[in-house]
């Protein structure tokens, strides 16, 4: 079951929002509604689902409705229409008591400007969620202390928020959200107010914590690099509508429209694309048992000066050059004596790491998964991948 399921969620700011909802259903756009009625469409019929343990990033520029969307999920802003299911329960239909309970038990939140309580110490900020739930002081302070240690703030628990730097304040914000031990973290531009270096540090921290505790994270950002780094999946928003949902690779490789394409064109692809995106089918592959004569014949047929050799289970053994194949045939040597070991890579290795490898390799890099030959990557493939995005050929290795 999906952790968060959003169906046709809509928010209209104005006097008669229901009228605008009708207009939206008839396919009218944000601008038309603003011109005709003076009402502002914040979020327009958004549907998406977030799986348990996933980091789902919503990316958009200011005014795209992303911050409104995240507030509709815990009803800091009341939705005009649509449904939000958290663990199968529709939060939009809950009464006040159930909503408060839902916020306490299931939905933690981290804010762009931290939203710390300035009159309380770090410890009392972090323990706030438990305090309002009526958890006794010794217990809530013990639990808060543990989280404060986890986020690396030990020793600062008695400090007041205004004595801390921005990065440390946001660690307090993160710790506060973690202390209630909710399954879901809503993060509204949580790192946008931080310096680049601190931001990177916090991103790494989030990924580390995420891999440790497996929260479901809904992360809002206006920074595509951040989205690509953190997101298992990304939704791109514009004018209250989701333009595209997909994994970082899908969005980079196949932008849904020119808006997304414009966004992604300046992105450093080397960090996002991996070996499997740019690998090609080898032109010539042979089984080891076929022998050197067959090797020469296949190379002649394909016009390739090298051939990749696999065993019966398609386990990769090495590559054979035409010179070595002829040598083995003439001198009647076993193939293994003349096999050449090429540079290897996993399918998941980022292109970034392959650049150095490719520069020093005489032959294309061989992509191997669990010992099986998956494909090859030439220097050209890496460069074209960096420029054009991923190679769309289906890779099927056949001998």
């Amino acid at each position, binding site marked *: 079951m999906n952790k968060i399921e959003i169906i046709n969620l809509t928010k209209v700011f104005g006097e008669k929002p229901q009228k605008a909802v009708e207009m939206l259903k008839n396919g009218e756009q944000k601008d038309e509604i603003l011109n005709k009625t003076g009402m502002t469409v914040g979020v327009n019929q958004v549907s998406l689902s977030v799986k348990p343990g996933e980091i789902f990033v919503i990316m958009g520029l200011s005014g795209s409705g992303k911050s409104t969307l995240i*507030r509709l999920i*815990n009803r*800091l802003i009341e939705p005009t229409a649509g449904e939000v299911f958290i663990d199968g329960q529709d939060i939009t239909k809950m009464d006040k008591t159930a909503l*408060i*309970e*839902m*916020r*306490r038990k299931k*939905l*933690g*939140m981290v*804010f*762009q*400007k*931290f*939203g*710390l*309580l*300035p*009159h309380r110490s770090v410890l009392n900020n972090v323990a*706030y*969620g438990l*305090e*309002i*739930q009526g958890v006794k002081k010794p217990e809530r302070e013990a639990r808060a202390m543990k989280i404060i240690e986890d986020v690396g703030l030990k020793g600062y628990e008695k400090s*007041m928020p*205004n004595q801390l730097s921005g990065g440390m304040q946001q660690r307090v914000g993160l710790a*506060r959200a973690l202390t*209630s031990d909710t399954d879901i973290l*809503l993060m509204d531009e949580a790192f946008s107010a931080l310096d680049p270096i601190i931001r990177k540090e916090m991103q790494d921290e989030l990924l580390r914590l995420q891999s440790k505790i497996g929260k479901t994270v809904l992360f809002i950002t206006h920074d595509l690099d951040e989205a690509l780094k953190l997101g298992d999946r990304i939704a791109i928003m514009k004018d209250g509508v989701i333009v595209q949902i997909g994994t970082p690779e899908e969005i980079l490789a196949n932008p849904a429209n020119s808006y997304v394409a414009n966004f992604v064109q300046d992105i450093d692809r080397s960090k996002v694309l991996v070996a499997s995106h740019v690998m090609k089918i080898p032109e010539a592959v042979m089984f080891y048992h076929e022998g050197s004569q067959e090797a020469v014949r296949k190379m002649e047929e394909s016009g390739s000066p090298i051939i990749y050799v696999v065993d019966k289970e398609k386990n990769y053994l090495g590559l054979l050059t035409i010179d070595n194949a002829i040598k083995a045939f003439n001198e009647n040597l076993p193939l293994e004596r003349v096999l050449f070991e090429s540079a290897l890579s996993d399918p998941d290795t980022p292109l970034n790491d392959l650049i150095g490898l490719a520069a020093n390799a005489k032959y294309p890099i061989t992509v191997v998964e669990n010992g099986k030959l998956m494909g090859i990557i030439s220097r050209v493939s890496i460069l074209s991948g960096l420029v054009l995005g991923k190679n769309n050929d289906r890779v099927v290795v056949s001998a």
Partner: protein
Amino acid sequence: MNYFKLPLEEWTNTFINDWFLPNMSGFFDGISNVFQSFIDMITKLLIAVPPEIIAIILIILAWRISGKGLALFTLVGCLYMGSVGMWEAAMQTVGIMIVSTIVSVFIGVPLGILSETSKGVDKVIRPILDFMQTLPIFVYLIPSILLFGLGGVPAVIATFVFAAPPAVRMTSLGIKQVPAEVVEASKAFGSTTTQLLFKVQLPLAMPAIMAGVNQTIMLSLSMAVVSSMIGAPGLGSSVLRGIATVNVGLGLTAGLAIVVLAIILDRITQSLGQKTKF
């Protein structure tokens, strides 16, 4: 502009004399008695305690909350009030001021909270506050004598009308100024409305509320002379006696005592407001 005759004067008098006073005087007598005993209690306590002890408490308060300068000023001020024979009158003034301030704060702060949380309440309260602050003092001084008789009680009521609005306004301003993200964060973690109010909004609005209380105290002191016209005892009545008998010396002596009291109380409450800031 005299197109039609509006007999507001006759209507008001008929209403007050024929209905309001006969029907409501029992109710107002009750209120009057409660206030009177409250004022008496506080004033008697202030007079019964030896002046030295009150002075020492004030000096320590001034020193702790503000600093050495104010403590020294408080010492000199207390010595002054004692040596010109104004101590008892000063305590009477302080007694009425304390009761007026307590009434203003106890009614004003909740009203300020209400007017910030509900737009409807705000719409009703706002014009009433404007009315209270701009209506000439003597207009409600006269009816409050009718309702509460002469003495400290009508002074408290008149002072309340004059001094409560800042408490209401500053409270609602203070709550309005709590950063939106802090309120959002508190809600997002599942605070109830009451928890939000007491754990977040009121503590953060404290500096503004204290500024309102400070204003209330200052306005009550400034009412001291006016209140003495309707029989309130204290420094004001000394000033009034000085004016009536053209005794400039008496007027100045009592007037200076009011100023001294005002400065001490103003500085202490202001520093208190600063201490609640973050």
